[in-house]
């Protein structure tokens, strides 16, 4: 087999220019696919990196679920069941309040565990004391209160909550909160929320269930298993992994489409190989006649031509990967400054990402296309009538 490749290598060397052109043809196609895929991969990696930076991957947010048309509420027993899966498990309530000046806000009734789970950090003031009507504000809502209500840390604020009785009749309840602290901005919905003591919140609303549970895990690797277990209880889960998954899904689709269009150049490369190989079979008709007369089988002839195609595929793959890396580098060095200038995003390192899978895929594509392109010419060569082939000079 090695000798078949050596002989094929020699055959290719006798037609250097042609071989070089064919290699260039296939490798430009591979380079296009590698470059474009590296761009898609780069965008994906950057987007996932952004999500990972602003989200806690070890956090699962559990909310009531729906199973067989029934709403599964978060009862005490559910909280106990969930608590097996996380290192910190913090149930909370979530209610809507409105101020006399018609500022609507959400207040979460929380416990100390909740602050640990969400890793909330104070910017000013202090934490609320349990069993009191003190509240801590998210950064945005804090700003809003200061502007609209003129209520800063240390001030009180009136709020009204509307409760619905069992017959659906609404009753309003007024309450006065004391603002004791303001959180650092997080860039998440925490900024729009106020936080109060959970027991006070439940007392106000009379709820015997929770609106959600924050589940904190030790390692992000535990998230999928914990999530599956909690979902088995009939509850709904959300984690930043969901966003990463959807980014991955979208970018895979985008990359696939881009790679598909850039692979059109590969089809051209493949046709080039078919064409060159057919010419080669035609030119070597006489030689094929001789080899058949001296004992070559049809399979030997096919092997002869396919060996050449495999060499073209391997060299084309390597060259294509090299050109692809260069192309990707070019996209990065030209595209990144442009994106930074256009979008003002400055904190990503590279626009393109090359990994071993992309390079392996480029190499394999080259090999597979070369071999497929060689099948028909090789078969034609193998099927030549030896008498006619010998007569041709």
């Amino acid at each position, binding site marked *: 087999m090695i*000798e078949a490749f050596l002989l094929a290598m*020699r055959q290719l060397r006798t037609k250097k220019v042609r071989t070089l052109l064919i290699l260039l043809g296939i490798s430009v196609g591979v380079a296009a696919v590698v470059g474009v895929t590296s761009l898609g991969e780069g965008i994906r990696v950057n987007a996932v990196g952004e999500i990972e930076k602003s989200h806690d991957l070890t956090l699962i947010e559990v909310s009531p679920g729906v199973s067989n048309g029934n709403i599964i509420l978060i009862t005490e027993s559910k909280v106990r069941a969930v608590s097996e899966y996380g290192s910190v498990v913090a149930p909370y309530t979530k209610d809507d309040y409105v101020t006399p000046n018609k500022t609507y806000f959400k207040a979460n009734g929380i416990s100390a565990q909740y602050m640990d789970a969400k890793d909330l950090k104070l910017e000013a003031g202090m934490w609320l004391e349990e069993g009191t009507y003190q509240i801590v504000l998210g950064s945005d809502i804090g700003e809003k209160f200061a502007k609209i209500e003129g209520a800063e840390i240390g001030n009180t604020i009136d709020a009204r909550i509307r409760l619905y009785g069992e017959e659906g009749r609404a009753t309003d309840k007024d309450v006065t909160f004391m603002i004791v602290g303001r959180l650092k901005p997080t860039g998440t919905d925490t900024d729009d929320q106020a936080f109060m003591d959970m027991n006070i919140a439940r007392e106000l609303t009379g709820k015997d269930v929770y609106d959600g549970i924050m589940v904190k895990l030790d390692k992000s690797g535990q998230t999928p298993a914990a999530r599956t277990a909690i979902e088995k209880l009939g509850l709904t889960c959300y984690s930043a992994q969901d966003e990463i998954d959807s980014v991955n899904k979208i970018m895979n689709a985008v990359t696939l489409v881009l790679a598909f269009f850039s692979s059109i150049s590969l089809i051209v490369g493949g046709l080039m190989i078919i064409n060159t190989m057919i010419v080669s079979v035609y030119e070597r008709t006489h030689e094929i*006649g001789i080899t058949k*007369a*001296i*004992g070559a*089988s049809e399979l030997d002839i096919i092997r002869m031509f396919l060996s050449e195609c495999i060499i073209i595929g391997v060299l084309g793959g390597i060259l294509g990967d090299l050109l692809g890396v260069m192309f990707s580098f070019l996209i990065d060095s030209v595209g990144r400054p442009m994106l930074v200038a256009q979008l003002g995003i400055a904190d990503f390192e590279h626009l393109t990402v090359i990994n071993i899978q992309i390079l392996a895929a480029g190499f394999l594509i080259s090999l597979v296309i070369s071999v497929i392109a060689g099948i028909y010419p090789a078969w034609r060569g193998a099927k030549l009538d030896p*008498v006619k082939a010998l007569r041709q000079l």
Partner: protein
Amino acid sequence: MCMVKTRGLSKYYTFGSGNQVVALKGVNLTVESGEFVSIMGPSGSGKSTLLNIIGCLDKPTAGDVYIDDVKIDYGNAGNLVQLHRQTMGFVFQGFNLISTMNAIENVWYPMYFNKVPKPERIKRAEELLESVGLRDRTLHLPSELSGGEQQRVSIARALANRPRLILADEPTGNIDSRTGKKIIDLMKKLNKEQGITFIVTTHDKAMANNADRVITITDGEIVD
């Protein structure tokens, strides 16, 4: 023992226009093992066709060929390949060496297809080139050799897999008579010393004179 036997061997060529040309008409030929048979006849008489069919390069339209008393199954490609690899060798008028390979490579090429290990192949190719007097030409390309030398390389190649039958199609047709004489002597020597059966088509009287038997073909039929 009977090396080659043909029974009722016929070959017609049908062209697109519907015209049919008869190349061979019911040829019955028997060649004994170790015989040197010369086939003569004018151009287009069918002698090359006969040789190609015996050599399994072409298929007969009707009739059978027996090699070592075994009927050739022309539909069995694997069988034909084995005959090429083990039983027979070819020598052509136009030498038919592979132009990109040097003399020794041309000689070991049939052994390559016969799966002979490389060192053994090279050793035998060297011996064969030596036996045809081309020991110092092993690394020359066909284009660097004279017609006579090329034909000797092709005889060495035909001998590569130790065949018992050599089919030669006008082996002296493209070389001058003095060189042709050497080729004839070489073939005679192989026939005498190694007992290889030769079937040689020729126009060359000198070749015919050296044969054990001369068969004449005209219009696809053997004329006694």
